[in-house]
């Protein structure tokens, strides 16, 4: 009540600052774990004694695997929220769906990039057409790029929410079909490497991987929270502008009536 809030903070709150600090610290710790504490993946062939494995490229997985799992989590959140939009029709679900989709798409892009960079030394190719997960992820990325493009169009917000919800649900329903078709399609290349399964998983390796989930989980959570708040502000700002415009129209810009109209939404603001 101490006059207009002049703080520069827009989407921050005590909780989110704590979350952000936690995310930064744990990512820093993850870097130490991934690059200093853990060993490279070097195995020795039992008969020839030759060294093989992923060597230091394995350190990419502490980044890549958590991002991939969190991407799926984000898209599941988006699908659930989209179902919420259709069932409940409230702005909360809509803003959540949009936030999850945007965060998920950023993560998805990074998953593709880090996977490609990891694949170059390990699979000896930037792009492996025969890999199911890779192709499914790519189509998923394109689906959500389309979703975000739809979101950027302007139309009646309630219709927009419903349209976006349908697109998100169709995208998620499409995943099993894409996956199945790519699994069969891929069989003709006879190229399937379950590279993760053959890693020698030591305690520290496993711990680092799990810690990666925690660190990037906090990052993703922070992003989701702030993206939600940005979306919420966007919607509130539009509502507010519309309310003012309506009030101006209705009361012929009578100053007192305008204040009364705004005051109904915002009675804490000092009227003087």
């Amino acid at each position, binding site marked *: 009540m101490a006059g207009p809030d002049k703080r520069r903070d827009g989407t921050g709150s005590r909780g989110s600052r704590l979350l952000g600090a936690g995310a930064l610290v744990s990512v820093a710790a993850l870097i130490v774990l991934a690059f200093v504490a853990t060993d490279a993946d070097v195995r020795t062939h039992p008969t020839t004694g030759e060294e093989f494995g992923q060597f230091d490229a394995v350190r990419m997985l502490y980044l890549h695997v958590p991002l991939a799992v969190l991407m799926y989590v984000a898209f599941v959140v988006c699908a659930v929220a989209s179902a919420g939009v*259709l069932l409940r029709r409230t702005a909360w679900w809509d803003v959540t769906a949009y936030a999850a989709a945007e965060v998920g798409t950023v993560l998805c892009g990074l998953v593709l990039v880090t996977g490609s960079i990891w694949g170059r030394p390990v699979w000896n190719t930037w792009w492996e057409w025969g890999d199911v997960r890779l192709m499914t992820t790519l*189509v998923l990325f*394109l*689906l959500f*790029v*389309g*979703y975000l*493009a*739809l979101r950027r*169009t302007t*139309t009646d917000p309630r*219709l927009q929410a*419903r*349209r976006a919800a*349908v*697109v998100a*649900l*169709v*995208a998620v*329903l*499409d995943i099993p*079909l*894409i996956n*199945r*078709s*790519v699994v*069969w*399609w891929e069989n*003709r290349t006879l190229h399937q490497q379950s590279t993760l399964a053959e890693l020698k998983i030591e305690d520290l390796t496993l711990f680092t991987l799990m810690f990666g989930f925690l660190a990037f989980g906090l990052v993703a959570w922070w992003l989701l929270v702030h993206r939600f708040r940005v979306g919420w502000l966007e919607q509130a700002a539009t509502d507010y502008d519309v309310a003012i415009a309506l009030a101006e129209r209705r009361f012929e810009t009578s100053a007192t009536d305008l204040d009364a109209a705004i005051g109904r939404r915002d009675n804490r603001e000092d009227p003087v």
Partner: protein
Amino acid sequence: MTPLASMSGRPVVDVRRFLVDVRLVAGRDLWIEARSRVVVAQVVPFALLVLILFGFALDADQRTLDTFAPGLFWVAVLFSALLAVHRSARLEQSDGTLDALRMSGLAPLALFLGKATAVFVQLLALEAVLVGGLLVFYGVEVEDPVLLIVAGVLAGATVASAGTLYGALASGLGVRETLLPILLLPVLAPVLISATRAFDDALGVAAVDGWAWTGLLAATALVATVVGALAHGVLIED
């Protein structure tokens, strides 16, 4: 949303009236298309043009064309389907057509199925012409006509359902022309893969089990139609 719900006042669901509605919508769309001749004069020539451009791009090597014919065929179908879907969606946009249809007591499901059927019929005609194009320009031979037809029908049904849904979804947006492809084409990725594989078998290009792929196409067609019908109802209400 369903004929059941929209006719709740009646004692039983009037299936016959529902089918009449579907035929009415499909007939209207097809009649408008037939009158404007855009499909015959532009969409089909465009699809053939795409086939021929692939021929130029691939250096007119008959064996290369033979090998890639199924994939090129389906890419040409998808591109042309975008045009057909655009036209189909635009019909509902002019001068409150949708409001009029809603007021007429037409079941939303009948609207969706009718529009999808009209696109489906156009796609089948397009596919038939394009198969002719493959035979003439690419020199392919049909080894399993039944598989070819079944796969073509199922893939066409999926594209028509998904296309009708996304056409309604993108309608009324200023950027529809550019938005529709990036929304629709990724969704149809499984169809492209499955239909291409089925055609590989039907045209004897590659040793794959075309009927297994056709099974996947059938599942896709079913999902597309059911989801399309449900979602279309959500989109056009109020």
